[in-house]
């Protein structure tokens, strides 16, 4: 319906140039909008504590310097050999091109979901529904976002250029300029793609298909099969070594994309914009708290991944195991997009496990992380209970027992994913007898380990944004409390990585010429200890915490009692 796609021509014109208004002239509203923004900005500036702002800038600069220094130690400073340089020139553009493909893919998907601009909910209600041309309303926030993205990308690109100079020679200035330029181009490509997708109201499925095609093209280019247009942009990164004027075409295309995106600004869907306004704020807050589960949950909401009205399968309505059936009622309502993601994540985890087994051992972390993200999808029944804890508290069932009874449905779903992964792995590796057993052990361990990590993350809940320490934190020394926060963030992923650890041991055994099966079983034993421990933790967490709280209270009461007994007044009374 609304403007401008389906609107009559006169409406579309009036949206774009602000003429033919039934209400006030466009300049009236625009002037009021400008004044509103000016006064709010002045108020915000007045509220900024300068010393706080300077401290934040200092911390950002310090952390950035540490990262650059660390990366420089990783990259090293020995000049690369001639053959190495040749390889960099050959494969480098493809690698940078893959970054461009990623940027375009992210931009397309963001735009299809109402991005990249996110305004306040009140701005949607009062300004975007006012008779003011929407492009004029959104151009300010869009340019602000562009400015920040360009600055950040330029700094990151320049740092990367500096690191490249240490190994690849040539002039430092040339590499810094090339790095900064490519960084800016990446940021502009991302935002331009997002603005175009938004302005043209590209459907989410179409954005995903185009993004997938771009990524596949860039990967095929990297494999040397074809030439992707993104690698033309990638060649710009190597300008200090080799420059072709033709490559500047990429700059023209990216700038044209941004221009087209800005021209289309304001033609996007207000429904998506309003949905985005609410969720993006929460998303940023969750990201600030390193709360990955909430980030994923909000991204699902942003993509409008709603449970299906009608389940894929009917679960029998009778029987004793209420929570088991409740779990499956949720799982069989997964929308198609979510099922697709589960399959993709299973494939990703399988590929990472295979990569680990074939000797790229660091991929074990990737396998664990992907299995963890997969687990966050499969843990849905438990997550629903945790997210509505006020309901659980009213039930005449101990919370730990209630939560633990949600686990079997998710575990069976994880086993099914593991079976799928094992089948995929065997399709690649062949179906020799022992290979089948190893594949099954690795797949089950990885999928159940990922689920265990997700269970930990879900049950422990989002980190508290409160500055008031909890009872547990109060009882701990500050150093230990700090460590606790770090462990809390890292532990779920660590449990998931332990689930994939058998793949590492198998790789080690193969490298040393030993049988892989005992190594796989050994690793699976270790993983199963953690998986079972997680289930026990879910079951007995509440009683254990209650016991700990009681112990702290008793200890405080005893201390107070001793203080009273040893005080001079008490002694005199005695």
């Amino acid at each position: 319906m609304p403007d401008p796609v389906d609107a009559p021509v006169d409406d579309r014109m009036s949206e774009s140039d602000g003429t033919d208004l039934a209400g006030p002239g466009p300049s009236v509203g625009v002037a009021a909008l400008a004044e509103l923004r000016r006064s709010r900005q002045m108020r915000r500036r007045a509220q900024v504590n300068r010393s706080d702002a300077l401290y934040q800038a200092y911390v950002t600069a310090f952390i950035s310097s540490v990262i650059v220094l660390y990366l420089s130690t990783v990259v090293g400073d020995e000049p690369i050999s001639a053959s190495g340089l040749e390889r960099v020139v050959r494969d480098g553009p493809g690698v940078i091109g893959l970054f461009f493909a990623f940027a375009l893919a992210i931009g397309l998907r963001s735009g299809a979901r109402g991005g990249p601009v996110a305004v306040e909910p009140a701005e949607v209600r009062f300004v975007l529904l006012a008779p003011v041309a929407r492009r004029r309303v959104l151009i300010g926030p869009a340019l602000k976002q562009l400015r920040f993205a360009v600055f950040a990308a330029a700094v990151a690109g320049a740092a990367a250029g500096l690191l490249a100079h240490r190994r690849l020679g040539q002039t430092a200035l040339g590499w810094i300029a090339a790095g900064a330029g490519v960084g800016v181009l990446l940021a502009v490509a991302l935002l331009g793609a997002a603005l175009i997708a938004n302005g043209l109201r590209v459907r989410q499925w179409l954005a995903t298909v185009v993004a997938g095609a771009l990524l596949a093209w860039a990967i095929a280019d990297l494999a040397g099969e074809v030439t992707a247009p993104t690698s033309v942009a990638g060649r710009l990164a190597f300008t200090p070594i080799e420059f072709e004027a033709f490559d500047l075409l990429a700059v023209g295309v990216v700038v044209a994309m941004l221009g087209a995106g800005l021209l289309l600004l304001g033609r996007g869907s207000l429904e998506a914009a309003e949905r985005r306004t609410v969720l993006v704020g929460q998303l940023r807050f969750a990201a600030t708290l390193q709360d990955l589960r909430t980030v994923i949950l909000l991204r699902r909401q942003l993509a409008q991944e709603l449970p299906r009205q009608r389940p894929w399968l009917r679960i029998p309505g009778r029987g004793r195991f209420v929570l088991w059936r409740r779990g499956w009622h949720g799982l069989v309502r997964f929308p198609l997009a979510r099922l697709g993601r589960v399959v993709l994540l299973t494939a990703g985890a399988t590929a990472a496990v295979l990569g680990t087994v074939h000797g790229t051992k660091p991929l074990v972390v990737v396998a664990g992380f992907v299995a963890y993200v997969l687990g966050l999808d499969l843990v849905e029944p438990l997550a629903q209970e945790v997210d509505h804890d006020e309901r659980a508290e009213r039930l005449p069932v101990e919370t730990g027992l209630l939560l633990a009874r949600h686990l079997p449905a998710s575990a069976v779903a994880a086993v099914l994913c593991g079976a799928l992964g094992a089948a995929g792995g065997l399709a690649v590796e062949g179906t020799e007898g022992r290979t089948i057993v190893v594949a099954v052990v690795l797949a089950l361990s990885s999928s159940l380990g990922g689920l265990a990590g997700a269970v930990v993350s879900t049950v422990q809940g989002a980190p508290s944004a409160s500055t008031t320490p909890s009872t547990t934190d109060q009882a701990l020394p500050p150093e230990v409390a700090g460590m606790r926060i770090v462990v809390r963030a890292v532990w779920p992923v660590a449990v998931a990585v332990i689930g994939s650890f058998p793949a590492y041991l198998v790789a080690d055994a193969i490298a040393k010429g030993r049988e892989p099966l005992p190594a796989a079983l050994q690793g699976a034993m270790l993983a199963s200890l953690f998986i079972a421990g997680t289930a026990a933790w879910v079951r007995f967490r509440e009683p254990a915490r209650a016991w700990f709280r009681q112990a702290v209270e008793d200890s405080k009461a005893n201390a107070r009692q001793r203080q009273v007994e040893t005080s001079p007044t008490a002694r005199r009374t005695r």
Partner: protein
Amino acid sequence: MNPPKGRSNRHPTPPKRASAPSRGSAARGTRPPDRPAKPAPARAEAPAPPAPTLPPTYLTVDSLTKEYGDLIALSPLTLRVEQGEAIVLLGHNGSGKTTLLRMIAGLLEPSGGTSTVDGHAAGSLPSRATVSYLSDTPTFYDDLSVWEHLEVVARLHGVADWQQQAADLLGHLGIYERADDLPSRFSRGLRQKAAIALAFIRPFGLLLVDEPFVGLDAVGKQALLELFDLAHADGAALVVATHELAFVDRVERCVALRDGRLIHDGPTAGVDVLALVS
């Protein structure tokens, strides 16, 4: 940005609403011409009486639908609202009332069908100039007072002498003394009153109202009813979605939805309201 000092916050009569733009815009000829009345058969003895002039259709909804995946929130719905007409929109929770209002306001994209306001596609710039939407969930800027909100909304809609009107509105709703406070920190009822003031500070030809009585005290309800009457008398079309059955008697026409489908559209007189919302 402060309310004028020395003014009484007691308002004896409802404030005068800014004149609706619909009248001017309709006269400018952007709206399609009305269908001519069917000519009466010729008579030999007496000349035919002049055909009665129908009020122009202000809101036109044609086969409007909304689907969320496999959930149908609104089945194809067709509706006409004349200029100056007041209708009440009834239905149980989840019947599609809010969805319909949000689509007419331009906040939701329909899955099918069209809606036009004064001849313009809903959500288009001219339509936004003439539709005022009072949502069931009041939304405010965190850092603006009620008075500053009123200034922003009034000026975005080109209301020049908004101060007097704002003071009158706030006085009428009984929140004049809270004009400098942040509405984002208000209670539900006060937020609703602030939202009502914002819906009425600007000119409109069509007022869409979703559950306006929620959280309002008796004085607030009375004040809102008076504002509705004033807007109606001023020629604006009103579409009010509510569960407040007492409101039904105040309007001429009742539209009822059930499970996203239109089940009734007719005069309120003699309607079994309870049957419609059950």
